[in-house]
């Protein structure tokens, strides 16, 4: 009797029926084509050790084992579903690296996220809503957590200390003895030349194109800012 194997492993049938199998296969092929894929997946014992270690599995309907298994079994449908519904729950702690088979489910999820971004999946865009200013900060300034983010509106649940810190920010930053840390809009003072070098890296490695996939406005702002600087520094972009 012929067996339709892929159907046996489907958890939720039908949710992405409107997306063609070819499209799902194309995305899976992109995941597999990543040079890290073969360093991160070696099959699965189905032992559940990764699940036991995983904080996100404790909190969400999420399982690193399901991810490793779907990839190992080449279950295209389930991989597609996970790329939409699961991967953003992972907290990238890499507790799952205690896998006795040597798998790296957290790393596999990193690859799946990159493919989701590169292909502009709606769920990826959704996951990054509210995150754009961080991307702007890191790509633009070279440091990604700045003191001026410590605002009570941004962190109302961090208590009254945040109000005091934001009120005294300029003053308290100058009360830091290391000379590089008298900054408020960056974690420390980054040399201009260093920032330009970082811009060149973003350009040369296609990261700007990735940004275009998730937020065209942010892409425009960053591109303009970077091109001016790179041109000024005499780099050919």
């Amino acid at each position: 009797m012929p067996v339709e194997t892929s159907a046996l492993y489907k958890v939720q049938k039908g949710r992405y029926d409107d997306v063609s199998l070819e499209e799902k296969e194309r995305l899976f092929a992109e995941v597999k084509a990543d040079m890290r894929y073969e360093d991160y997946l070696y099959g699965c014992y189905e032992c559940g050790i990764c699940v036991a270690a995983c904080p996100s599995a404790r909190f969400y309907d999420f399982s690193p084992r399901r991810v490793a298994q779907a990839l190992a079994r080449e279950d295209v449908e389930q991989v597609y579903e996970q790329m939409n519904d699961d991967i953003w729950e992972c907290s990238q702690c890499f507790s799952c690296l205690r896998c006795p088979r040597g798998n790296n489910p957290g790393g596999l999820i990193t690859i799946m996220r990159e493919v989701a971004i590169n292909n502009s999946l709606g769920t990826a865009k959704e996951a990054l809503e509210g995150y754009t200013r961080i991307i702007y900060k890191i790509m633009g300034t070279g440091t990604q957590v700045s003191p001026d983010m410590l605002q009570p509106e941004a962190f109302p649940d961090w208590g009254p200390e945040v109000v005091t810190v934001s009120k005294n920010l300029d003053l308290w930053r100058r009360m830091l003895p290391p000379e590089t840390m008298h900054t408020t809009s960056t974690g420390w003072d980054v040399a201009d030349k260093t920032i330009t070098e970082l811009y060149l890296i973003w350009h040369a490695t296609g990261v700007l194109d990735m940004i275009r996939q998730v937020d065209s406005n942010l892409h425009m702002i960053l591109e303009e800012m970077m091109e001016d600087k790179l041109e000024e520094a005499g780099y050919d972009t």
Partner: protein
Amino acid sequence: MGFIPVEEITKKKAQFVRDPDAKLPENIREHVLQLEAEGEWVVHRIPEDHVEVPTKYGIPKKVPVQPTWHHKSCGQCGHIPGYSTSIFWVHRKLGLTYEDPRDQTSCTAWNYYASATSNAAAQAAVAVRNFAAAYESGNFPIIHCGTSYGHYKEVREELMLHPELRAEVRAIMAKLGKPLVMPEEIVHYSEWFWAMRNEIAKHQVRDFSNISATVHPACHYYKLVEQDAIYDPELYGGQRTAVVSGLAIALGAEVRDYSTFFDCCGFGFRHILVQRDFTRSFATLRKIQVMKDEADPDVTLTHDTGCVTTLDKSQFAAKAHGITASIPVMSDAQFAALAMGAHPYKVCQLHWHNADYRPLLEKMGIDWRQAWAEFEKDVKRLEDGEIEYLSWEDVDA
């Protein structure tokens, strides 16, 4: 009746003949040097003044004493500045040469893990550019952030395994006029503190024998590329990383155990910003509350910004849910600096922390009211234009 399609399952599984152990040699340092011998990259060698420490895989790791180049952490400098200030202050007290560079960016891994809007080549190039900057300075890089440390080791592994990635990064570095540089060891600041713990204890001026601590080790320190993280057979039977705990013990504090030691703090990269219920719940229910119930420590110590932020800031909102467990949170560097007599505000900058640390200071014999008055006095000097910044001289005055 259904049946299990064993043949179909084994057919799929049989594809996996790959062996994770065959990928990389156990001795990473040898492999790094081997690639240099093959002309693939330049190795930034550990300075003569170094200490050898034990690692998980038993191959001794060289930790530089000086001169060092401090790869700062965006989170530490941005939100918990007492972290870096304490690291530098301890170096100064021990009379060691270090550099706090401007030619350094973040590792950018926070954004990478949170948003995936980067890729392997970009991440590797950012790492190597920073390595090259340290190499050009002649000082050996010490990585302040747990995530930068783990991520850079991940980058090192990817660069070792993939010649095409090396070629791509080499070409970018050539555009920048820099060589492809790989440090002989990737060293976290807490490894430096561990290596220097006895030296630090010699300079201790405050008695910590009545202080109890729990330790939360950062996931990216010991879970991400585990081979060369510090494990001491004398501590936890070599079954847990020895950093942080070893330092606290050397300073005379009592390290207490709790059952969720291996759990993460709940930071989660994007979660701390956009899925904060996860972060708060995990930090308070799985870490703080468990520590309180099982160990009731005076302080919990960690060695990464994400962990300090998560464990510290999450405690406030949890009160609304009836969770009243509260434990002060700080880094091993701040703890060591306090032991060596550092000012709790001018050096350790504890006023940036949320959870109440004042009872701990009292137990350490520190008059925090007087210390705060001293800090305020300097703030006044600054407001009056008498000084522009607080200097290292002011700190030790």
